[in-house]
């Protein structure tokens, strides 16, 4: 981890800390369950788990307000849960059922919620970056102070359209936070083998976009950096880049044997840098929560996740008629 260590912890209440613990653990348990359902053949195709990266999206969602938008790539389950989408609807989409967010027609990589201003779920690496800037463009055009959280990975950071977007976002001062979730591996290729710069966020300097590297295993550090970025964007100063150094514990997708890194490397991150364990320790050592309190949270999450799995198994497959719907709109979907 090259990321700097945040020494000054932001002021955060015990309730907020507990909420981060809850939200991160919900993502982890949900993803573990998704992995299990994949193993049982209930989830098909590609399925990219977010385990290990939970602090990124939870820390940033803590800085969002009503009206803000978010968009990401195909590793999207965590983002959906963190912005308040219903675990039942997400899991039912993973199993390809009619109660899924996209009626079973999108799958793991393509889910959306107009209501939560979650704009996908995109499967083409890098393509969601101009889309995110476009959402920010719409907010600026309408004259509101909303910001767009545009997430992508260290792999996507080598796509040309990312820099086309940086250029226009800076030129037009778009309220867009570019979040590089640097989990160190673009599928199986490490950053060292794929990326000429050690600090990806510094590429923003060429466009006059400020940014910083952040320890993505520390939810409070992520939140603090997010606050800086959000304040910058809301003030009309244009885009901001956060390169969040994180780590995914699982393979790129379910079928990735992950032979490009050692088991020891993964185990070391899990043992020493786990973002959920870190908050758990903070809660207990600060006497903000007891073991019993945390057990109750664990239990509640387990129930929610189990319920989502049951819901997703029992929801019917989409009717065959659904094959032919939603190809053309007859009216414009209403703005949320």
């Amino acid at each position, binding site marked *: 981890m090259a990321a700097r260590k945040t020494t000054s912890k932001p002021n955060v209440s015990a309730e907020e800390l507990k909420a981060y613990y809850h939200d991160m653990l919900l993502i982890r348990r949900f993803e573990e369950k998704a992995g299990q359902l994949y193993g*049982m053949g209930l989830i098909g195709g590609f399925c990219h788990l977010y385990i290990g990266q939970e602090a990124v999206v939870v820390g940033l969602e803590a800085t969002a307000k009503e009206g803000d938008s978010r968009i990401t790539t195909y590793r999207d389950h965590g983002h959906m849960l963190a912005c308040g989408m219903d675990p039942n609807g997400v899991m039912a989409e993973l199993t390809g059922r009619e109660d899924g967010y996209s009626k079973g027609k999108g799958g793991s990589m393509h889910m959306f919620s107009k209501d939560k201003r979650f704009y996908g779920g995109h499967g083409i690496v890098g393509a969601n970056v*101009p889309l995110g800037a*476009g*959402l920010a463009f719409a907010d600026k055009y309408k004259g509101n102070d909303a910001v767009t959280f545009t997430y992508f990975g260290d792999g996507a950071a080598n796509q040309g359209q990312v820099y086309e977007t940086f250029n226009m976002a800076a030129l037009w001062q778009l309220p867009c936070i570019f979040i590089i979730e640097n989990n160190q591996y673009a599928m199986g290729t490490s950053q060292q083998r794929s990326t000429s710069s050690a600090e990806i966020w510094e590429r923003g300097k060429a466009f006059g976009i400020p940014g910083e590297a952040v320890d993505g295993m520390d939810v409070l550090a992520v939140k603090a950096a997010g606050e800086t970025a959000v304040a910058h964007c809301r003030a009309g100063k244009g885009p901001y880049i956060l390169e969040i150094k994180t780590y995914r514990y699982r393979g790129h997708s379910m079928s990735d044997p992950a032979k490009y890194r050692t088991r020891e490397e993964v185990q070391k991150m899990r043992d020493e840098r786990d973002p959920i364990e870190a908050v758990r320790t903070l809660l207990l050592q600060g006497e903000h929560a007891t073991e019993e309190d945390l057990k109750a949270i664990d239990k509640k999450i387990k129930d929610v996740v189990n319920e989502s799995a049951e819901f997703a198994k029992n929801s019917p497959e989409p009717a065959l008629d659904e094959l032919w719907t*939603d*190809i053309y709109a007859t009216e414009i979907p209403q703005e949320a």
Partner: protein
Amino acid sequence: MATEILMPALSPTMEEGTLAKWLVKEGDTVKSGDIMAEIETDKATMEFEAVDEGVIGKILIEEGTEGVKVNTAIAILLEEGESAEDIDTAKSEPASAPVPANKEQSSETAPAESKTHPEPKVEADTTPDWPEGTKLKQQTVREALRDAMAEEMRRDENVFLMGEEVAEYQGAYKISQGLLDEFGAKRVIDTPITEHGFAGIGVGAAFGGLRPIVEFMTWNFGMQAIDQIINSAAKTLYMSGGQMGAPMVFRGPNGAAARVGAQHSQDYAAWYMQIPGLKVAMPYSASDYKGLMKSAIRDPNPVIFLENEILYGRSFDVPDTDDYTVPFGKARIWREGKDVTIVSFGIGMTYALEAAEKLAADGIDAEVIDLRTLRPMDTASIIKSVQKTNRCVTVEEGWPQGSVGGYISSVLMQQAFDYLDAPVINCTGKDVPMPYAANLEKHALVTTAEVIDAVKTVTYK
């Protein structure tokens, strides 16, 4: 309660695998994330992690076993306090695959009872574009396009135009002349030369509730942006289960201009016509440019608007009314005739109409149909015409393989076979990149003489 650990599917295509190695033994305690076994899939050797906490009560499948079906119980996991003695005789039969709640019904259609072909259903809309007596004015395609955009920008403040040189330069082909003055820099936006990026920003703005018009200086450059057009604009409505889409227009000149060489002279009609989720217009006359552009801007779907540089300066009659629109999916019959149907669109109409005039002098009475939009395509009007003429020639500047005409031929073969007295002929551009030399370029495009020859072939004259 003891739970069965099942052989997992570890790739999208895995049905069975080899249980290569156990990394735990009976009696071991495992917690979520611990690696329990190595499993060889059809692709690779994968580590298999525990999801639940517990104690390995019994291993049911020995390591080294090949061909273990997905969902077979491979071990039993005990919860705290349970012992291996409690385990019932383990089921090692593969658990039945999850049963989908809806069984897929057979979608095969029953074979036709009789051997005759069903009568094609033809409901062509033949109402004229404007009522008789409508006041008309002469306008170029260029003016009609500009007026259409300006009228819609006055009507809806969420409509904006972005592209290279659209604002201060007044448009590389002067289509946006005057728009910056009227609507200002907020709504008429010069972009850097970065088609992929600004097309994506346009799509994102449409997701966010605006109605972008994205101009490509030519559609050749739009190829840089084709991923955003297809994967982001066309598919999002479907992928989101109808929650959101991209109501917007992508527009610009398409096809060959004059002497600009291979990279600047491609007709994309057939490419975009193929994509569900897109609408595609390729008009010929100024009134259609105007009426279809206004419909395109109002349409809640992404529209591909294929213009033509050579047509920009041509003048046509345009209704001098407040709000003239033309619907998508309605062809226009430019000339009625009984001997042959010539179907074209866009610049192809110049060859079709010229050929029809010359053929009339030879006593061949051609009906000429302008499709105007390729998706949706008014195939009903083509079929209806062919039922009368029994012959059809299609005309386009694009390449022959996978052409628009090829599609029309297949529609006629399937829906109007019994009405055809001759094979359909597709007049297309030649199957070569566009050459620069003037004489070669002329031959690379479709020619009026070729259309005349094709008509004479299908009419056996």
